[in-house]
């Protein structure tokens, strides 16, 4: 397969990229590690590891407190990372960037702060049939509390959201629409711009779960037009337990605080406390200081490699792998949406995904097996689980060849 123009133009060199990931030098059962589980969590390049170590070796301190030198340095680096994340998301202001533990916490914040204030009995929250549990359960909790209804726009056999049904399910009662940008289990890229337009026309606010999109696509929250956008640092080559919520300033300003504690207040007395300005109002307690600084380094690193070049490389791998896996008898790809990113989810006739995973692991190939925290998606296809191989910027066609060879071994064993 020839390189796509974007790929050639940017001079993307996968071998050079691979050298930046120390973990790729590891072996598993005497074989080179083939890491195809980046949709669960991405590996870290040296730049990110160095950034986190640098904090602890030279200037770690708590932030937004103290007048001493280290506190100042740590605060500056932390806020600089916020600026990097703002640019990464295309947000207008750092006041719109709330630093959190990740997508799950971000969605819970919106459900508990915005949702509890704006959703009342008989109101509706609309999600889609391909959501991760973290974009289902927070809304269920909210709907249960408020006697509101959770509506679900179904997906078709390929894994695309039924847009006619989505449109029909939008009513004046719909207060919040929460959709994933990219599905973790199927790889479907949702038409979030169109979904946002439709939702806004119906008077609802829109949250986009960007956990699986941020590592693969250029995100621009203003181009999408959404009201909230959540992503996790660990999937964008950054540390775990870091991430951010983008929220439109006017909405965030009107929302009540979610968690109380240090840093989120302007003043405290036993009679009454007042809240800090945005975005600190939503950031109670000491955060993952070094982690956030390293997330800034991860985003800088991604920018350096080039998100468009990464997307082009991964798209090429997706096409190559789809062809390769489709040729294997007895293998069925689950999720074949027209617009797709980064994921091969499949079932093998007569072999349970757990056995696939164990045999592949023996070959040094790391894949995810199970329901991928998306049980309703599995139910939709009438299967308990799939095997999922997911891509990152450092994967190669040779690795996909290894995957195909591994799958043939599985089939021989369980023939």
């Amino acid at each position, binding site marked *: 397969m020839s390189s796509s123009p974007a790929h050639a133009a940017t001079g993307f060199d996968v071998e050079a990229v691979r050298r930046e990931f120390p973990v790729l030098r590891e072996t598993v059962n005497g074989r080179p590690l083939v890491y195809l589980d980046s949709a669960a969590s991405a590996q870290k390049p040296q730049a990110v590891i160095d950034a986190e170590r640098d904090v602890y070796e030279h200037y770690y301190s708590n932030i937004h407190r103290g007048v001493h030198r280290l506190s100042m340095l740590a605060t500056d680096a932390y806020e600089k990372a916020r600026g990097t994340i703002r640019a990464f998301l295309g947000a207008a202001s750092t006041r719109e960037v709330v630093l959190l533990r990740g997508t799950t916490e971000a969605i819970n914040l919106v459900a508990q702060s915005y949702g509890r204030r704006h959703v009342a009995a008989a109101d509706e929250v609309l999600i889609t049939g391909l959501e991760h549990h973290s974009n289902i359960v927070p809304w269920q909790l909210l709907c249960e509390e408020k006697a509101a209804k959770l509506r679900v726009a179904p997906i078709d056999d390929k894994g695309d959201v039924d847009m006619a049904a989505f449109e029909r399910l939008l009513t004046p009662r719909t207060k919040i629409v929460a959709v994933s940008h990219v599905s973790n289990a199927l790889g479907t890229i949702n038409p979030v711009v169109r979904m946002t337009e439709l939702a806004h026309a119906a008077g609802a606010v829109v949250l986009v779960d960007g956990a699986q999109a941020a590592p693969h696509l250029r995100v621009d929250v203003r181009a999408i037009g959404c009201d909230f956008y959540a992503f996790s640092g660990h999937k964008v080559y950054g540390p775990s337990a870091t991430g951010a919520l983008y929220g439109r300033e006017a909405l965030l300003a009107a929302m009540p605080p979610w968690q109380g504690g240090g840093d989120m207040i302007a003043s405290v007395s036993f009679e009454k406390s007042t809240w800090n300005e945005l975005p600190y109002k939503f950031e109670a307690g000491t955060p993952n200081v070094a982690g956030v600084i390293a997330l800034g380094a991860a985003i800088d690193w991604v920018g350096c490699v080039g998100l468009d070049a990464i997307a082009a490389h991964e798209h090429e791998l997706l096409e190559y792998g789809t062809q390769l896996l489709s040729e294997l008898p007895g293998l069925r790809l689950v999720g074949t949406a027209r617009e797709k990113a980064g994921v091969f989810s499949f079932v093998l006739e*007569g*072999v*349970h*995904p*757990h*056995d696939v995973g*164990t*045999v592949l692991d*023996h070959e040094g190939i790391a894949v995810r*097996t*199970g*329901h991928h925290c998306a*049980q309703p998606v*599995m139910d939709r296809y009438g299967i*308990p*689980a799939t095997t999922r191989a997911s891509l990152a910027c450092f994967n190669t066609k040779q690795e996909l060849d290894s995957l195909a060879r591994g799958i043939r071994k599985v089939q021989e*064993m*369980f023939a």
Partner: protein
Amino acid sequence: MNDLRELYQEVILDHSKKPRNFRELPGANRSAEGYNPLCGDRATVYLLVEDDVVREATFKGSGCSISTASASMMTDALKGKTLGEAKALFELFHELVTADPSKAAAVSAQLGKLAVFAGVHEFPMRVKCASLAWHTMKAALEGGARATTE
């Protein structure tokens, strides 16, 4: 491939492809449903117990090769055992797949055919697959309707 063959022994592969006693048991007087929330595997174990003896044991469900083979061989092994023997077998099997390898030889000797599951010990992520049917059987004997591996 060696340790992988330790896990996927021929006997295990055979039982997973052609599970024995894979049916509901209309006359069952003990049964329980087992569920492994981690992977979605399900097993329902049916027992016919008379005079303190397991006369018949069957199962239904869906799962990986290890959990299917384990249920298949367990139901074979249970037939004719007293309730006390069945519970003792549960303890032995549990020890086989979880305890340290130094004890494995002694445990294996008492388990007969079931000793083929000793290889599971090297695959900690698969211990729950092997034990699902056993936990379910124990729940059925103790009068519980449900068992989970959590």
